[in-house]
């Protein structure tokens, strides 16, 4: 049969109507319930205690950070109105917003900031403990001023880029004198944000409603936000189509479903609003294997894998070749021109021959075990692609698949792997969660750190210098040097750059308008009728 079917005609007219209705409804409409896909239930919802997208997607609407990122990706004031650093970077002063109240009616003051920073960020919050390790005290000269005092210089740029994720404030009067990890408010958060926590039914849903006393006058627009716990990806896609879910964040649907929904005029599948959550795919080498400790073998492996081919055929337009540990979305620290290892099978074979690994029986030079991380369909696909690519140059690869707990234990604690592949999350500044992949001295068992059995004193020094360099230009130069050095040494390879995908129902407005929108507070988001 030729010509469009009735359904296609219907869909086409729908597509033509979308922009018109968008224009017709340019003025925000108050009310409505935003239903959100919540794929992985978390143990706690308080972002001052756990830095992960699974917590921000809920807790980020109820609690607020000192600063967030604006549309251009620059730090913008939230609970802090302004900030300044002393020239030596040892004291950073935040002027706090006045007239802000917690959801239980108590006023928000500098005491809350002091308590959260000293008791939560410095002691419990993942990545916070490393960031604030040299924080010695938070002084509170008055109720609306907080002075962070550091033992070693803290670059203001680093702190401001880290705080949108690692700077959420919790109420001191709820947590003081309690066992913080067991506090009931961890799953029933009390914050200052646009939405007030109402109910959490484990395995089913979380509800938050409009905060009538929100400090941004006239906001939020939405009456309620409801997170629906849907762990099955196919079921989540069906619920989006049935209108039961309006927004699915962080690439939580199957790639095939997202491709299908992207063609449907009712939905938008986009990287917009996730620029602050860039990640790179990794290939991690275990230097305890003598073959892999040889730089020629590592380079040969990189040369043997056709990254553009893999991206084009498996990941589509949402990924691009990566050039190193700092992704191109990082406008401040991205360094083009570092050493690259393009697809060149002849070079790979030559390097392996030079390293003394001649082809034996069946053309096999040696065998390796590859352990892919279980999160993300792309990692599983990439593992298979690596296996097939390396077979072409005579390296036999056995893929060992494990679940999340098993993967972390096997790779980062037991070091029982040859190759591993997963994601590196870039969190706005290389010092937050990038350089730990390269800095030596991480205790055994710390996930996503240098557990490769590889050290380079020169690279360690650059990392340490950059972490305390207060001059932005010098910092940028140090990270340029860092990227060049690690690309030369190749202790691990980060060949693909991706940004999480959001699937929006097109009724959503002001959605995806900041670089970490899915994690942000959604105070200005509204629903068209």
């Amino acid at each position: 049969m030729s010509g469009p079917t009735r359904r296609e005609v219907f869909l086409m007219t729908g597509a033509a109507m979308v922009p018109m209705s968008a224009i017709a409804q340019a003025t925000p409409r108050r009310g409505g319930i935003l239903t959100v896909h919540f794929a992985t239930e978390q143990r706690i919802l308080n972002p001052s205690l756990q830095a992960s997208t699974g917590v921000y997607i809920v807790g980020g609407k109820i609690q607020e950070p000192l600063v967030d990122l604006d549309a251009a990706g620059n730090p913008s004031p939230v609970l802090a109105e302004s900030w300044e650093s002393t020239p030596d970077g040892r004291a950073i002063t935040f002027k706090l917003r006045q007239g802000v109240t917690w959801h239980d009616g108590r006023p928000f003051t500098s005491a809350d900031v002091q308590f959260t920073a000293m008791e939560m960020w410095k002691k419990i919050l993942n990545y916070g403990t490393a960031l604030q390790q040299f924080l010695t005290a938070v002084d509170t000269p008055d109720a609306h001023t907080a002075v962070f005092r550091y033992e070693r210089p803290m670059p203001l740029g680093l702190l401001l880029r880290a705080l949108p994720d690692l700077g959420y404030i919790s109420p001191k009067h709820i947590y003081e004198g309690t066992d913080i990890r067991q506090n009931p408010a961890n799953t029933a958060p009390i914050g200052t944000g646009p939405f007030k926590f109402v109910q959490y039914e484990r395995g089913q849903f979380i509800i938050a409603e409009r905060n009538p006393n929100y400090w941004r006058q006239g906001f939020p627009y939405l009456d309620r936000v409801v997170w629906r716990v849907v762990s099955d990806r196919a079921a989540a896609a069906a619920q989006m189509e049935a209108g039961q879910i309006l927004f699915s964040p962080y690439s939580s649907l199957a790639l095939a479903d997202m491709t299908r929904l992207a063609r449907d005029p009712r939905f938008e599948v986009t990287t917009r609003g996730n620029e602050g959550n860039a990640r790179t795919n990794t290939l991690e080498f275990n230097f305890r294997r003598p073959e892999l400790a040889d730089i020629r073998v590592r380079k040969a492996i990189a040369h043997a894998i056709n990254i553009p081919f893999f991206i084009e055929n498996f990941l589509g337009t949402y990924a691009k070749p990566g050039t190193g540990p700092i992704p191109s979305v990082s406008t401040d620290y991205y360094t083009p021109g570092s050493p690259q290892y393009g697809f060149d099978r002849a070079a790979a074979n030559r390097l392996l021959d030079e390293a003394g690994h001649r082809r034996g029986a069946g053309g096999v030079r040696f065998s390796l075990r590859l352990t892919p991380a279980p999160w993300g369909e792309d990692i599983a696909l990439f593992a298979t692609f690596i296996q097939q690519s390396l077979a072409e140059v005579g390296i036999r690869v056995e893929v060992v698949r494990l679940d999340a707990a098993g993967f972390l234990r096997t790779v980062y604690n037991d070091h029982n792997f040859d190759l591993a592949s997963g994601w590196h999350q870039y969190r706005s500044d290389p010092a937050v969660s990038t350089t730990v992949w390269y800095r030596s001295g991480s205790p055994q068992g710390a996930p996503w750190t240098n557990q490769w059995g590889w050290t380079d004193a020169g690279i360690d020094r650059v990392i340490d210098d950059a972490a305390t360099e207060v001059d932005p230009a010098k910092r940028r130069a140090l990270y340029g040097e860092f990227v060049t050095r690690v690309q030369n040494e190749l202790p691990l390879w980060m060949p693909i750059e991706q940004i999480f995908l959001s699937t929006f129902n097109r009724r959503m407005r002001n959605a995806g308008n900041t670089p970490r929108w899915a994690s942000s507070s959604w105070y200005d988001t509204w629903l068209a009728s």
Partner: protein
Amino acid sequence: MKLLLLALRRLAASLPALVLILVGLFLLLQLAPGDTVDALMAQMGGGDAAIAADLRRFYGLDLSVTARLGAYLWRLLTLDLGFSAIYGKPVASVILERLPATLLLMTGALFFAFSFGMALGVIAARRVNRWPDTLISTLGLIFYATPSFWFGLMAIVVFSVYLQWLPAGGFGDVAMGFTGWARVWDTATYLVLPVLTLALIFLAIALRIMRASMLEVQGMDFVRTARAKGLSDMRIVARHVLRNALLPMVTLIGLQAGTMLGGSVVVESVFTLPGLGRLAYESVVQRDLNTLLGIVFVSALLVIAVNFIVDLLYARLDPRITG
């Protein structure tokens, strides 16, 4: 009194098996790489080693395996199921929250599967080798051979996405906040598709067993006697054949109640029902040992209870069998 004694004897006979299962599962999970802190680290997206050590102390994982197993069994003696790592509250209350969805799903599916399975089996046996029999048997084969997740997803695509008759998943409309009968009706609409999906495969089994057992009993001497007595056809089927043919069906219910508890992981995931199956899956992935052992414990008790009821039914259906 006799009934109570019987119940107690049953329970006493099941206790050693229960303890063996719990200890075995505990040890088996020690073999899985990683613990609940590793799972939490994966969820958090990282953290340093000091945090991990701190959390291991918090969850009591710094003790030896034997010490933890001993402590667990000791607590079990006082009917304390322990504390859930992922939910941060007592395991007993976590399970209690999840029990209604699983029980509704299980009883609904069992009821549907066995009532319809019985009816279809009787019809097929009465019209053996004619078109109703062929049709019913073919349908049964299709239901039996199709995986339930596929049925579930197809049901969602047809009834929720295209026709929009029924909700695609969940356990009641969370936004509307229904109470009373409105809530019962609302919950029922959410249960239709999962119950049907879970029931189909068991329906297929039930109808095949029923058909075979009807055919077998129909050929027996006492049926010929009844017919010779001049009893009506209806009466023979209802009073003589059906009652005797039901025994294997009742056995099947006892066996499948247990299977359904476990088998609902798939259906609960596809329809996002907050049941025990999903909880068990989550507990394995997150290495939440206490919750998992608690679920096994409660499921075992449920299976023991169902089998006890089945035994009583036997005695009722066939007076020759006594407890």
